[in-house]
């Protein structure tokens, strides 16, 4: 290829890539610098930003009654949702991987909550959780248990919202199911020939072969659920006592309701560092657990 043709190809490539590069610049890299820079300012409503160094961070950790609560609630929500949700999705996928009638219909039913508008889902779940008239307490009542103030109680608010999020784990079910269907039958038959039972097959074939898929799903669901927002916005408003004051909701509240943009940026920066740490921990701890074919 001549030099001229090469440079023409390069120009064409950059033209094709121009939108994506603009996106990287204006929606990823500049905003990151923006978060850092704005986090160092006091920037309220219509006033001009004022540089205050680490002032916002000092306030967050020493003077803000709700910030630390916001971090721990977010972590609690994500942990609860991802741990139980992973078990739920995996178990459903194992069930649907058996030769049962109506598998396609089942798959649709379990998948559907994933694409439902989150506000619509939040409204009906909030009504099911309602303490006096809600159907969930009715079920508890009828098996002899006491009614629970699901959304009005610090101990149960996050698990209640977490159950709703787990209901929307249909995408992970579909991914696990595809992974299960990709496991070569001959491997499982080999275990049977050696006299292994269902548990052996699961422990020595299914689990190791699916470990990269599990890792991917856990990573994606952690990142998604740390960013929980809609349930806090539409159901609990952060209550009771900050137990559902998840970080994105807190950023939104400080920024767009209280007009404290500098402060909200400082929270965003910590939120980013927090997600980066969690991601790094997941990557680091996965090294010994993952099994890749051919290794």
């Amino acid at each position: 290829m001549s030099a001229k043709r090469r440079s023409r190809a390069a120009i064409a490539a950059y033209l094709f890539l121009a939108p994506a590069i603009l996106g990287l610049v204006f929606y990823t890299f500049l905003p990151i610098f923006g978060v850092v820079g704005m986090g160092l300012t006091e920037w309220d409503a219509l006033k001009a930003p004022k540089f205050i160094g680490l002032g916002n961070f000092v306030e967050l950790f020493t003077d803000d009654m709700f910030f630390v609560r916001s971090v721990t609630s977010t972590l609690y929500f994500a942990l609860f949702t991802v741990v139980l949700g992973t078990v739920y999705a995996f178990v459903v996928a194992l069930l649907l991987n058996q030769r049962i009638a109506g598998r396609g219909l089942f798959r649709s039913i379990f998948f559907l909550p994933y694409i439902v508008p989150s506000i619509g889902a939040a409204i009906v779940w909030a009504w099911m959780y309602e303490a006096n008239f809600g159907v969930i307490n009715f079920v508890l009542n009828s098996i002899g248990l006491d009614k629970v103030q699901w959304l009005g109680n610090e101990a149960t608010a996050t698990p209640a919202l977490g159950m709703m999020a787990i209901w929307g784990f249909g995408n992970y079910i579909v991914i696990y199911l595809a992974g299960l269907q990709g496991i070569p039958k001959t491997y499982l038959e080999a275990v049977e020939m050696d006299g292994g039972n269902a548990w052996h097959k699961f422990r020595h074939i299914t689990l190791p072969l699916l470990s990269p898929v599990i890792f991917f799903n856990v990573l994606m669901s952690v990142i998604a659920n740390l960013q929980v927002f809609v349930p806090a916005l539409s159901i609990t408003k952060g209550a009771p006592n900050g137990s559902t004051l998840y970080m994105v909701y807190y950023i939104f509240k400080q920024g767009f309701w209280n007009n404290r943009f500098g402060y909200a940026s400082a929270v965003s920066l910590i939120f980013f560092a927090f997600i980066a740490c969690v991601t790094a921990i997941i990557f680091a701890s996965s090294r010994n657990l993952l099994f890749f074919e051919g290794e």
Partner: protein
Amino acid sequence: MTMRTGTNYMITALASLMGLACIFPFFWMLRSSFMNNIEIYQYPPRLLPSILRADNYPAALSIFPFGRYLINTLTIAIPSVAGTLLTSTMAAYALARLEFPLKRLIFTLIIASMLMPGTVTIIPIFKGWVALHMASGYLPLIVPAFLGGGAFNIFLCRQFLMTIPRDLDEAATIDGAGRVRILARILLPLIKPVLISIGLFAFILYWNDVLGPLIYISRNEQNTISQGLANFRAGFGTDYRAIMAASCMSVAPAVALYFAGQKYFIEGIVLSGLKS
């Protein structure tokens, strides 16, 4: 053999039980939307309405202008889907087929940006739109779709374009076709199923988005369906029959779209899991 069928019955029973639990919130929403408030607040709750009160829907519509919200939502979603498909395939084509300086770096940056949670940067991006005096309206919600359409979509298209033999491009080049023509007429038709999946998921993303409209749209007559529903609930918190009817109206199109494009939804999700 009998043991096998026995286990199968148990598995079917268990899956059915869980499936019923999973579908229950949909049923509850629908059933409540046909009741009056007295029946909704009845305790112990009744399973079905005594009569089907379809008049909840017109009642809800008189305060919840679904048609208006639907047009608003589509005004955002349709251009956004188009922008997603257009710019992600353009970027994917360059990464899959063309040679240029810094290719590896750009590819790596695009992949790395997938790990960046979008919610971290809402504040500076909003301030950017404020600086441009364009922070109120649909533009800030549509423009991002035209800036690459999401790193994951670029990656997905690239992977699929790489599986198409280059002979096809070369033959077309000899016939005098340019790059745009090769991409639009030869390559994209070959990855149509992937493009349909990407389009459907992008549509659902914009249909369900809450945070974006909340930040950039303040006037009620510009609200999207999700936003309108959130406001409706905040304003009419106890009128559950109307809220449930409005919820059903906002959920139904998403459900209908799913059943219309089921195959592509499932395939799209499977693809998203295979990148690991």
